């Protein structure tokens, strides 16, 4: 007995430039009642497309070319739109990735949650409200009686994600599709949301499809895992099988990327001058009358980066870690404190800094998409710092661009391409090459691997390590992902609410003393199916 059955599904798409491609190539999949199946793969692997096909929905530009999608006896691929619409919300429900974008900011939460019941005329509104409160309670939302009277901006991101799940569960669906529901959440929030999802699904006996790129998250919630790549199923098996006895090389590379090789520290902390030293820096946004910022984002932050070593800065969103990078780079001049580069005091604002100071400290941003000028070729992007800092022109500049492309392992032909014609990983390499063009001593890496797929991110980390060995660089590595920070850093600084909580050597993170850093480290999901159930329940800090 299966609840949903996908047979030889093929989905075609027309790209913006009018090209026809097949994005799902013959996928077959079964989902039993009460079973949670995870679809895992990198971006572009077709995992969301398959999940949406279970609702008979295709994103604009896509169409189901062939194959059948039987859900509870109805073929969603061929059923008329009216019948599909009747099934959405009652038989199949959907929890979106970004709950913040899925809620209407102008309407009370309860009215949006019970909308499914109203549209399908499932029950009287009073009964729907009472049921919504039950669901809120099951999802462990605070104040279940009254939380529905609030507006979307009055609850936190994790609560909103659970409310989005409540919206899906109100119609008692047989199958719930979760589309990366915890990707946008902080780790300490993610754990609560996962726990809530898991208990509700178990209690209701509902089947689920959980779309994610994170094996560790999937391991906690899924019974079965389907590994996808390029629109094809690579491997399928129970969660334990996939995690411990993977046979397909792609699954193995995914698993390997989860455990990056720890950094072999060569350089001992020196007592000499630090490559970068931040002393009691306070910075914030919005200048008030008294010369103090209206919103303090960094308070009295101090850190030290020795030459040839790496400092990891870790914290949740809003902890001030990116602000620290902006303050060090002089983009957000600190109102207090000192920033020393190689023992030499730097001006707070980048405008006042000398070209030489600017050259020695480079910053690399998170989103390579927006960090590269779409109108400039790769050669021009990398060449500009050469001309700007070193006055290199003509053939010498060409030769140096070639060298830099070589350093970041990109082919020479790339120099004529525009950023729009590169993949995410390639863009991030160009982004790095531009920073290297300045011959810097310190590079600030602001979440540079966060937007990349696991395997690609691991290769960028390896590249950073190699470059460090060859060029004697020091990195400040800002991330919310503990495993990447562990892989590359010598020391890890934990930030919370704009303050430094604790600084620890990377190989002794388990010895954290501060309760917040303990919570943060323990909230990172492990590649182990029983991890979530073993985690003790506790109140959020």
């Amino acid at each position, binding site marked *: 007995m299966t609840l949903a059955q996908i047979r030889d599904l093929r989905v075609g798409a027309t790209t*913006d*430039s*009018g*090209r026809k491609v097949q994005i799902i190539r013959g996928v077959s999949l079964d989902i039993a009642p009460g079973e949670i199946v995870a679809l895992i793969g990198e971006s572009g692997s077709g995992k969301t497309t398959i999940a949406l096909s279970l609702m008979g929905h295709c994103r604009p530009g896509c169409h189901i070319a062939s194959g059948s999608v039987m859900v509870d006896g109805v073929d969603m691929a061929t059923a008329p739109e009216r019948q599909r619409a009747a099934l959405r919300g009652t038989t199949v429900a959907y929890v979106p990735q970004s709950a913040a974008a899925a809620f209407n900011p102008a309407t009370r939460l309860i009215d949006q949650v019970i909308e499914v019941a109203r549209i399908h005329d499932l029950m009287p509104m009073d009964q729907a409200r009472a049921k919504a409160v039950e669901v809120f309670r099951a999802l462990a939302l605070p104040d279940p009686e009254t939380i529905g009277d609030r507006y979307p901006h009055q609850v936190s991101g994790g609560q909103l994600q659970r409310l989005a799940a409540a919206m899906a569960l109100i119609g008692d669906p047989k199958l719930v599709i979760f589309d990366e529901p915890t990707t946008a959440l902080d780790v300490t929030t993610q754990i609560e949301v996962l726990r809530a999802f898991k208990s509700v699904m178990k209690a209701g006996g509902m089947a689920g499809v959980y779309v994610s790129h994170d094996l560790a998250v999937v391991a906690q919630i899924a019974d079965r895992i389907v590994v996808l790549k390029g629109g094809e199923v690579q491997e399928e098996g129970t969660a334990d099988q996939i995690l411990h006895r993977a046979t397909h090389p792609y699954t193995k590379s995914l698993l390997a990327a989860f455990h990056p090789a720890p950094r072999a520290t060569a350089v001992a902390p020196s007592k000499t001058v630090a490559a970068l030293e931040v002393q009691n820096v306070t910075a914030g946004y919005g200048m008030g009358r008294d010369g103090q910022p209206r919103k303090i984002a960094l308070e009295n932050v101090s850190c030290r980066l020795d030459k040839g070593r790496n400092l990891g800065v870790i914290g949740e969103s809003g902890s001030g870690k990116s602000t620290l990078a902006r303050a060090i*780079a*002089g*983009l957000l001049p600190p109102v207090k404190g000192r920033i020393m580069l190689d023992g030499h005091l730097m001006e707070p604002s*980048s*405008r006042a*800094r000398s*070209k030489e100071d*600017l050259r020695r400290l*480079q*910053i690399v*941003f*998170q*989103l390579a998409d*927006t*960090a*590269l*000028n*779409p*109108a*400039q070729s790769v050669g021009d992007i990398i060449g*500009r*710092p050469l001309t*700007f*800092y070193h006055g290199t022109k003509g053939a010498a500049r060409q030769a140096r661009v070639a060298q830099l492309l070589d350093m970041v392992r990109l082919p020479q032909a790339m120099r004529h391409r525009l950023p*729009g*014609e590169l993949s995410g990983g390639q863009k991030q390499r160009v982004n790095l090459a*531009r920073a290297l063009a*300045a011959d810097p001593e310190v590079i600030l890496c602001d979440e540079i691997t966060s937007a990349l797929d696991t395997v690609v991110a691991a290769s960028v980390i390896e590249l950073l390590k190699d470059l460090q060995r060859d060029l004697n660089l020091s990195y400040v590595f800002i991330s919310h992902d503990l495993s990447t920070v562990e892989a590359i850093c010598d020391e890890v600084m934990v930030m919370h609410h704009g303050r430094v909580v604790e600084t620890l050597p990377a190989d002794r993170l388990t010895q954290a003393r501060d309760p917040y850093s303990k919570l943060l480290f323990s909230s990172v999901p492990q590649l182990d199916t029983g991890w979530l159930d073993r985690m003790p329940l506790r109140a959020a800090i």
Partner: protein
Amino acid sequence: MSQALSLRNLSPRNMGWHVSPVGVLAACVIAFWAVMAMVGPWIAPHPPGQIVDYDFFGPLSAEYPLGTDYLGRDMLSRVLAGARFTVGISLAAVMLACTAGIVLGMAAAVLGGWTDTAISRVLDAVSSIPSKLFGLVVVAAIGSSIPVLIGVLAVVYTPGSYRFARALAVNVNTMDYVTVARARGERTAYLIRAEIMPNILGPVLADMGLRFVFIVLMLSGLSFLGLGVQPPNADWGSLVRENMGGLSFGAPAVIMPSIAIATLTISVNLLIDNLPTRIRDRSE
């Protein structure tokens, strides 16, 4: 595989350069009027200012393909000669207005703070003056001449161009690549020229086309009111005004310059609507 794909994609159509037939037709009409503006007076069958027919408001005929006007002058010759004034003055004005608007807009976006506020408020003040009224007052005060007309039209249409360019530039200015350039220590001129301008150029060019249409219409309006190009020269707006009297006779003399105005403005609009996606939307 990806190699093969990338090679196959390089045809103009797939690169977003696909052009529609309507766009091509519109471009042809615009090109026709542009050529006429240049060579019109030389290929006109009769001298535009000379009375050639004893009859006034003459009908379409082999000798006078568009009829004759209220004095018996050849309409075809006068429309061809008028193209030079209408297209020339409008083009000069749109160039001035958009250059000023775009440069100020980008500067305001990049510099921000007081500079932005000052430029924005001044141009807001300019745009709060009703444009026709402004034209009337200036022309009445210092008399009508071609440089004055160009100046008035440019001043009237600068604030709109500025608003448009500033809105686009503000968005681009928050992009990480501009932040990287700032962190590198680049000067404002470089930020504007290399980082901002290439990324707002597509929409700005489209906007320039629309503004050209507005200017053609306003110039025709001013001329219709008698404040535009002065006799014996005439742009299309003046031609309509001169021949108003023929309206009751159903004379072609009043219809033809109106058709000329309509074909030019509609064609510019159609061309912009049918621009290849690559130019219209550079975000792809």
